[in-house]
């Protein structure tokens, strides 16, 4: 599914964020990317959906070298990826339903179909009665679930979540993780970047540890206790 060959990323004027990363991630895998702030977790995810350009090496997604994609190709790549961010990135002027359906509408799904799909997802994620609410009236946990619904609406092959629980209290964080892990049931590969070791302890997943931009450890199965399963 995903292959990284000697991937390095250097930000001007010469700060190295990632150094010589080699990875292979299979379809349907759950991968936790852990490390302290500045370890390169977010950069690694950003390279995967071409938010950042890599400095050296190659990244292949579904066999395609993503560095060679043109703008249209990047747009197509992103349609197959569901993105979840720490800060949710919801549009304040739209309702929860509209925020979710927007992601489907922009790839050509009809408005009606997008709305139906968005409603179903929100219902699945326990937000049935909140679909008409604007983001600012939602709790942090609810906002994150709306963002997850948006990431899921185009049935992505890959879900990338960057510190999805970073702004949440323990209860909301647990709920968010539960929802994210359920994405695997849909057959998606899920990669979650987090610095919260508690999550690692309670999650059965492959754990990739980054330290100072270098791959420090790649444990095929983490110290899972299966709490979220």
């Amino acid at each position, binding site marked *: 599914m995903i292959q990284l060959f000697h991937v390095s990323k250097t930000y001007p004027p010469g700060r190295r964020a990632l150094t010589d990363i080699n990875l292979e991630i299979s379809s349907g895998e759950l991968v936790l990317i852990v490390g302290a702030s500045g370890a390169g977790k977010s950069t690694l995810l950003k390279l995967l959906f071409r938010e950042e350009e890599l400095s050296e090496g190659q990244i292949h997604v579904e066999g395609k070298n993503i560095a060679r994609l043109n703008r*249209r190709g990047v747009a197509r790549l*992103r349609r197959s990826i569901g*993105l979840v961010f720490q800060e949710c*990135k919801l*549009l304040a002027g739209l309702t929860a339903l509209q925020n979710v359906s*927007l992601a489907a509408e922009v*790839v050509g799904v*009809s408005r009606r179909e997008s709305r139906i799909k968005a409603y179903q997802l929100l219902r699945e994620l326990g937000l049935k009665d909140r679909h008409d609410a604007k983001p600012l009236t939602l709790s942090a946990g609810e906002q994150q679930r709306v963002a997850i619904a*948006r990431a899921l609406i*185009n049935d992505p092959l890959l879900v990338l979540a960057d510190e999805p629980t970073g702004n949440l209290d323990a209860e909301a964080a647990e709920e968010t993780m539960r929802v994210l892990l359920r994405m695997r049931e849909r057959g998606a590969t899920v990669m979650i970047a987090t610095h919260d070791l508690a999550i690692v302890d309670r999650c059965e997943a492959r754990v990739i540890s980054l330290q100072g931009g270098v791959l420090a450890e790649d444990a095929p199965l983490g110290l899972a206790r299966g709490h979220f399963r």
Partner: protein
Amino acid sequence: MKLALIGFVCRRVGGSLRQSFWTHVLTAGTVSMTLFVFGGFMLLETNLQKLLKSWGAQIQITAYLNSGLTAAEVSDTVKRVQSLPEVERVRHTSQEQAWRDFQTALGSQSTLLEGLPREVLPASIEISLRPEHRDAPAIDHVAQRLKQETQISSVEYPQEWIERLGLLVLVVEWVKWLFGGVLFLATFFIVGSTVKLAILARREEVEIMQLVGASEELIQAPFVIEGMIQGLAGAAIATALLAVAYVLLQREIAPVAGLLSPVGDLEFLQVYNVGMLLAIGLFLGATGSLISLRRFIRTWHVSSARA
């Protein structure tokens, strides 16, 4: 583009027009002022050309014939001149006729001619040109051609004022494009700035659209369409203002100033002129948005990637 995407773009355009109505009105107003000035020059040019054509209809080239030509030689010369492609009509005036015409023109003072020999006035042919050949170069060309005729002694035509009027039309045309060019450039930046503001106002939305895989065309299309609507609306307003100015000038100012006497009624812009104004409005709006978008979204994309 899929029907669903067209619907999406239309909804976004509609939403933006409602949301930033006054910004759009202001931009359309600016475009309309530019095109009003440009259209004003078009109107002036149209009417000067009409004036030139109207005067051109009265322009005649007079070719004086050598004395002592036989009737057959005169007839041959008239036939040759008549066969020129630029010539519409030829009228031969014999020496006798010229004498009588001059006498009539002098009226009560015709006694002044007593004692003069009748051969003092030469026979001539008066040549009217076809409407499409009533400009200075064509008239000059025909005159030169006539001078080559051995039976013609001299050729007269009002060369100087034809050239001056022709020059005036040319100057108006140049000024129109010069003024137009400067104003278009200004409009271009104003439309571009409005679009830039619109992008800034919807920056988050554009960013999210980029992240969920919206194509560049889909992101840009609403902004370009908004620019086109602004340009088109501006051109329509300009045309309406020109029509009002035309009616005012026609009904109130012009008769008082006596401007209309040489050509009769003033003429409004031709359909193709109005079409040109609308097309320029559309072009200014579309390219102003597009260039601003390309520059702004790409710069922003690169800078956000490096942040």
